[in-house]
Structure formats: structure tokens, C-alpha cells
């Protein structure tokens, strides 16, 4: 799009939108330092919840489980979902309509139904419930989200670039790696991000497909919250956000030092 600076009203609007997104997060962070365990009103400042958190074996285990599931399911669903987007956007084949409809089903289906149906299915084929079954389920609901986002990117994609590449002697695979993939990459990345976000936060389907010892963070937090939304839970969310910001910052600094001139 245009390289001109966005108009002032647009910048103000964006600022307000970001404020809407971040205001609850700010509140959440502030209340992670609250001394009141029940965390209904502000009582006083303390760091003790972070100490509690670091000693909470259950939370540490749940974090590990969550990350394993989120990374595995994101990678697999992004690859499979991108291929499906290419197929649907570029080709006609027997069963096209059926394939397209099928891809909407995981988006449409009420989570409880998907959870129960997967539970019944895994049980009937004798699969032991655990990290594996959760990951399989997450991939299933992630694929359509990736496909939808990548398709939006592919739509209107100029095929003549690819054809030109092939004319210059590149084979199908080279063209895909060198031309197609870089062009649709923003779509693939946002699809992957969406999948990762969904996987991190899923409760209902995870609940039904979980087995002994595979409790994830949302399951853990849901059970902690039944007592009260203690500041420990807030502390956990705070650390999570902080980690992402630090990673993001390092990435930016690295990028900047690599290509100081690049402005496009």
C-alpha cells in the first residue's frame, strides 16, 4: 500500500483502538501486585505472588504442556492448511465443493460438540487420552483458520509472476519456494499466528481430549479461578505478556542492526 504517512485521524483512531486492547491488560498487570488474595479490591503492593508462581509445579508443568501442543499444532496445521488454500484458490477438482464445505465445519461446529465427538471417537478407537490426542484435535480446528487467512491473501494473486519464473526455466518447486511462498508469506504467518493464539487459549476441546497428566494452562487456570482470580493467575499472565514483548524487542533490535538502511 501507499508509503505516505497515515492521516492524523487514522493515527488517533488506531491509538484509541490499541488503548481498548491494552487497557484490560494493564489492569490485569497492576492487580498481579495486589496483597489481597481474593483480588477484588486493591489492598497493597507485594511481589509475593511471583514467588508463589515460580514454586507452583502444576503451573510449570501446564506451561510446558501448553507450549508443546501450541507449537506442534501450529506448525502442522499451517503446512496442511496452506496447501489446502492453494488447492482451493487455484484448482478445480472433483469434490471441490465438498472439500470447501468440510473446511468450514470446524469453524462452525460448537466447541462442545467437537470436544465430545473427538472424545467418543478417540475412546472408540482405543487411543490413550493425553498430549497426543489434544494436539491432534488442535490441528483439526486450526487448519480451517489457516486456510481462510491464506486464501484471503492468495485471492487476486498475480499468476503471471509465477509463469514468468517458469518461463525463465525454474521448475515447479523452485517457483513455489522462490516466488509463490514469499508472496503469500504474510498470509501464512498471520494464519500461523492465529492458529498459535487459538491453540494457546483453547479450553473446551482441550478439556474433553485431555488425559491424565496432560493439563494445559487454560485448564489449570480455569480450575484456579474457581477459588478466586488470585493475583498468582494475574502474575502468570503478566509474565507471559512480558516474555512476548522481550522476544519482540530483541527481534526488532536484531532486525534493525542487520539492515540499518532499509526503508523501502
Amino acid at each position, binding site marked *: 500500500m501507499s508509503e505516505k504517512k497515515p492521516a492524523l485521524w487514522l493515527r488517533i483512531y488506531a491509538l484509541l483502538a490499541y488503548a481498548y486492547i491494552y487497557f484490560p491488560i494493564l489492569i490485569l498487570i497492576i492487580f498481579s501486585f495486589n496483597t489481597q488474595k481474593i483480588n477484588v479490591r486493591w489492598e497493597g503492593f507485594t511481589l509475593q505472588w511471583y514467588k508463589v508462581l515460580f514454586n507452583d509445579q502444576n503451573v510449570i508443568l501446564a506451561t510446558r504442556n501448553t507450549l508443546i501442543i501450541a507449537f506442534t499444532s501450529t506448525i502442522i496445521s499451517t503446512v496442511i492448511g496452506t496447501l489446502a488454500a492453494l488447492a482451493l484458490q487455484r*484448482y478445480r477438482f472433483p469434490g471441490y465443493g465438498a472439500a470447501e464445505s468440510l473446511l468450514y465445519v470446524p469453524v462452525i461446529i460448537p466447541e462442545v*460438540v467437537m470436544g465430545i465427538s473427538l472424545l467418543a471417537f478417540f475412546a472408540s478407537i482405543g487411543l490413550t487420552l493425553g498430549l497426543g490426542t489434544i494436539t491432534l484435535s488442535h490441528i483439526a480446528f486450526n487448519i480451517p483458520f489457516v486456510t481462510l487467512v491464506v486464501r484471503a491473501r492468495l485471492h487476486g494473486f498475480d499468476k503471471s509472476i509465477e509463469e514468468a519464473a517458469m518461463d525463465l526455466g525454474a521448475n515447479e518447486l523452485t517457483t513455489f519456494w522462490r516466488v509463490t511462498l514469499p508472496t503469500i508469506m504474510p498470509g501464512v504467518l498471520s494464519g500461523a499466528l492465529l492458529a498459535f493464539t487459538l491453540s494457546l487459549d483453547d479450553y473446551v476441546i482441550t478439556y474433553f481430549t485431555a488425559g491424565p497428566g496432560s493439563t494445559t494452562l487454560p485448564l489449570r487456570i480455569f480450575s484456579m479461578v474457581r477459588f478466586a482470580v488470585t493475583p498468582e493467575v494475574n502474575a502468570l499472565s503478566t509474565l507471559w505478556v512480558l516474555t512476548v514483548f522481550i522476544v519482540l524487542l530483541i527481534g526488532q533490535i536484531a532486525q534493525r542492526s542487520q539492515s540499518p538502511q532499509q526503508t523501502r
Partner: protein
Amino acid sequence: MAAETSSVSPAPRFSLIRQLRESPHAQGLALISPTLIYLLFTLVLPLLLVVVLSFMTRGPYGNIIYRVNLGNYTRLMDTLYLRILGYSLLTAALTTVGTILIGYPLAYYIARTPPRQRSVYLFLILVPFWTNFIIRIYAWIMILRTEGLLNSFLLKIGFIQAPLDILYTPTAVLIGMVYEFLPFMVLPLYTSLEKIEPAQLEAAADLGARPFMAFLRVTLPLSLPGMIAGSILVFIPAMGMFVVPDLMGGAKTILVGNLIRNQFLTARDWPFGAAASMLLLILTLIFTLFYTRRAGFGEELLV
């Protein structure tokens, strides 16, 4: 649809097909097959179980009696359930409109920042959603309640005389729903806005279009696929959402999501729950396909 490009256009010299020496049918199938095989096992077969279940009967203990009948479907033909469906449709529609109102300018803004910053801005949208869902909802509860932060602030600056009653009302539900679904609108919107070449806008300007007209005639139509993808990602899950209405709306209304959840987890009537979900599934699928075929990824609307 998109596939037409490959089957209609190729002139012999540019032929992609010639190099692949295979029919596009086979290529398409090869690309889609991982998805189909995967979803066959994790979606189709499990769902067949649900379809079978929907024709069964609830046993006295919430167990399932294998006696085939249509009773569950006839039970659904009732104004009570229609009313619930209507209310859910309204909530989902308002949520979608809300996310477009907030999300479109935001996505547009991100797409117009320098390329290197875009990923950062995009990330900034997603980061809050890497905290936990329930915790975010509770943060909103703290903000919105009678003696909460918003009311204290508004009272202090003298903007209101008495605290606003927001929490546990439909307004609170909408605030929470729009918040939770915003990224699902912004991401696809950004994806299609980012793709628009400056040249296209310049061409419009050259033809004398004013910025607003250029937006209406060029940008908006070109971003339509993103908006449609976003609407699907927001509208449909919003239909089945029950956590936000329960926590921020005080669980005082029943939406489709609650209805189905209750059949499985309180009334223990799995067959009826299965029938209700099948009906919802079919209705939504028809709606989605109609919507996308008509306005969505079809070429005719896209100038």
C-alpha cells in the same frame, strides 16, 4: 471461482500445465489431500458418531439408548428455540459489526505503516490474546462493575452523577465479545489490505477520484475478501459462544451455545444436544456457503 484461472486462461506458451504434464485436477487433489485425510479422521468420523447419536434416545441416567427415532429433531421445532436462535444471531451480528468498526481502520492503519513496522503492530494486536481468556474477562469485570474502575473514574471527573449499570447487561456482553473476537477480524482484513498496490490507488487518483471515492471504489472492494473471511471467523464462533454471556452477562440469557452445552453437561441429554448441534451446523454451513459464493471469493463483485 479462483480455479477458473488455471482451467480457462493458459495460452500454450505460458502453460503451467504443460510443465507439470498433469491435469490440474490431480494437482488440486494432491494439495488438498492432506487436509481431507486429516479431517476424515479428526472431524468426519467423529461427527458421524454425533449424527448417529442425534437419532438415539436419552436413557433415564443420561445414558444413550439405541432406538432410532426423529424425536429430537421434532422437539427442536418450537418457537422457544427459534427465539433463542434469533437472539444468538443478533448478538453475533452486532459483534461482527463491532469488530469491523474497530478493526477496519486499525487494519488499514497497519497496512499503511512502513513495511518493517507492520509485523510489530500486528503482533501488538495478538499479544494480549496470549494471556488467558478467563483472566481477560475478569479484568473487564473489574473495569465495568458498579464500584469498578470506569465508574469511579467517571464519577470523579463529574461526567456522571450515579454509577452506570453496565456489568451483567447485554452491553457488557457486547463489549466483551467484540474484545475477544477483534483479532479474528483484523488479521484477515490486514492480509487483504496489505496486498493492495499503491499503483492501484494512484490510478484511481489519476482518474480524478477523491480520496474517499478512491477508498469506496478501489480499497473497499479489494479488501472485501478479507472482510468476509473476518466476518466468518467472528460471526460463527460468536454464535456458539457462551463463556462471555455467562460471565459478563450474568448468565441471565440462554444463547445457542448455552443450549447445546447444557444438553451435554447439565441435562445429560446427549442425543438432543447432538440434534441441536447438527441443525445449527447445517444452517450455518448453508448460510456460509451462500454468503461466500454470492459475495465472497467470487470475482464478479471485485471490480
